[in-house]
């Protein structure tokens, strides 16, 4: 039985002044699939992710999420999660405060239930007892895990990862890549990783998509 397509990118174009970054780009991603976009700097990987989120408007083409065109949907309503290359944990909140921002209040869950959800996911990412930790005191790897957990808590249809492992040392990177992949597979979450590192892509993804400069 063929898998359900969750994301369809059809002939999208994006340019800045005279620079064509994406030119009739197409891609299909199945539900639960993990893919890696591999390519050199400047080939449009990050731009593609930003277009998927809605931070950049595409010049032409279509982006369909579960069959629906996203053209007029703002980023906050697309139900897409993203882990950025730079640390985006909010420094005025502790670990638990950051995680709680990822949990929707619309599901009639009580504060205690949301706190429990946050604690549970910390256990899943191997950071038990980190609830009250100041985010500034986290190591690079711990911060990445918390960001991933925060994104997972928001239950997105798809998670975009913009070179989140690039600043980590090799051992830590490999462990984090494996842990992240396992977690995504357990939860059956679709993910797109952007990277220029072939080894990272091979370790993480079910499928590697090569991108080159236009």
């Amino acid at each position, binding site marked *: 039985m063929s898998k359900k397509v969750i994301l369809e990118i059809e002939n999208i174009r994006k340019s800045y002044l005279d620079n064509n970054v994406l030119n009739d780009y197409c891609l299909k991603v199945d539900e639960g699939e993990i893919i890696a976009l591999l390519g050199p700097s400047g080939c449009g990987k990050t731009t593609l992710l930003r277009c998927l989120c809605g931070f950049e408007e595409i010049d032409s083409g279509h982006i369909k999420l579960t069959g629906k065109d996203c053209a007029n949907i703002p980023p906050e309503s697309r139900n897409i999660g993203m882990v950025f290359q730079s640390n985006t944990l909010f*420094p005025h909140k502790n670990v638990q405060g950051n995680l709680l921002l990822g949990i929707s209040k619309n599901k009639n869950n009580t504060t205690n239930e949301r706190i429990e959800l946050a604690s549970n996911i910390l256990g899943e990412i191997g950071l038990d007892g980190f609830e009250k930790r100041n985010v500034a005191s986290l190591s690079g790897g711990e911060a990445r895990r918390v960001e991933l957990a925060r*994104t997972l808590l928001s239950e997105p249809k798809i998670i975009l990862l913009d070179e989140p492992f690039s600043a980590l040392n090799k051992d830590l990177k490999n462990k984090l890549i494996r842990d992240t992949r396992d977690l995504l597979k357990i939860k059956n979450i679709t993910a797109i990783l952007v990277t220029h590192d072939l080894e990272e892509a091979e370790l993480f993804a079910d499928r590697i998509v090569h991108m080159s400069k236009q």
Partner: protein
Amino acid sequence: MRKGALLLHVAPTLLFSFLVFFPLYLGFTRLITVAELSPFAAIWQIDSRPSGIGAITFTFIEASISTILTILLGIPIAWTLARDNWPGRIYLRAIFTMPFVMPSIIAAVGFLALIGTDGPLYPLGIDLRQQSGIIGKISDATGWENPGHFIALIAAHIWFNLALTIRFLEPPLSNLNPNIEESIKLLPGGNNIFSRMKNLWLPLLSPNIAAASVMTFIFSFTSFALVRWLTPSSFTLERLMAEHGGAAGIPDYGMGDAQIVLGSATIQLITIMISLILLNWLQKRNGAAMPFALSKGQKRQIPYREMSFASILKTFYFISILIFVLAPLIAVFRSSFRMRVRTGDVGFTQQWTLEGWSSLSTLSWNQTTITEALFNSLGYAALTLLIAVPLGIIFANNIHLSDEIAKIAKTRRKRLFWKYWARGNDFLVMFPLAISAVLIGLGVSLGLLNTWPSLSQRWWFPAIGHILIATPFVVRSILPAIRSLNPDYSKAAALLGLGPIERMFKITLPLLSGPIVVASSLALAISLGEFGATWVVLRNGASSTLPVHIDSLFSKPGFDPLVTPTAMAGASVLMAITLILYVMVEKYRPDGAGGEF
């Protein structure tokens, strides 16, 4: 630490402490002796004098309302300047923040010109000066006395302090890492404008909003020239101190005056101290926002927004504020060409004339002409420049060095000593800015002059107040630049065989040349515009400064039609010099400077 270096650390601190605290100590001692009351007992005497009734309430009310409105009007400007790609954004920012360096007497006469019968508001039926028309009706309907004067004062305070909101809020808004904003948009905790406000913007901006509020409150609380001219029938604590200060040092005769001045000074010192402690606490909290900032080399991309209803509203708002900022300055210049002439037996009309400008060097008041007062001002400004700038540089360097020594100190005792030495010096050097100019003037006149009357014969004497008030601006301009200097430059120069003095003159000072130009221009502008302290020390006389002389001319009985255009011509000259200095400040201000002056 070598003896020379130690001396360079201790001597400026001792000298500045002496200049700040000794006159204040002498002044307070004198006041306590003459008033025959303790400072706290004197507080209760303020309301017992006709001029003092309601002064405490009025001061707190005008300062609070000025603060709230300044912040509310300033936030949209800071937000738009930081986040929208407007054509001429840099110039707009420079214009909006310009009033902060303008002499307070210019603001006072500018608003007087705006609200007078020859101003642009009068034909629109808005008479804030005589309070006829709609303002009179408001007064009749509400029983509120002099609403026009109060509105003019609040408007002038907003005009003056708008720059503080912009300077405090624009940097965190423009330096915010865009990924932070984007990431919160993708989370349930930030999927609408209200949740983003609650979870991101308020925590990020509240320390800066609070810091801008505290500074605006202090400046509105201690404003003098604006209160003196725009609300002639109301007294603030600052105005009470200034106007009763002349007689307050005379035993027996000045007892009542001394009680009012002592009580006012005590309330003011307590209020300012509480505000400063609050500011210090807020700035420490502000440190938490630092990780929000863009990393080095990262640049915020400001999107160019297409025309929409929101952008039309913003444009309208910006044009309104632009007119508001420029109007008093244009009014000063315009009034220098307007003269009142009699028509018939009782009527007057205004005519265009150049006589105000041609009388600059001839119209004399207290044996001083505007030109002579200008030269006096330039003399004090030159002295201020010569002393405040080197002193400020040494202070900034000492504060930075103490911080650095504290970081590498081997024992906890040494670390704490250098840390608090740095904090103490920072507090000391900012102290004259926090206490009011009038209080500094009273310290000088009641303290030093009463103890050593011959000092009043020294031409340089009034410059002491200017130096005290200008030095904090120098330190705040230089300190961030010194902190951002790469320490490796100095190390590399040392390895090339350059001694400490050579390193200072060949490496450090040339690298700091931009901030030094900024500091020097600010010091000159502050000295040229200084009003409160000089007014208390000099009142009138041959060595009067230009701001004090303009004030005296406006106090002159109004039968001479030349007085107003001549005073306005003098004010235009002062305004032009300040504008040139401000252009220098903006030209050499380091990129991304904010939160400082």
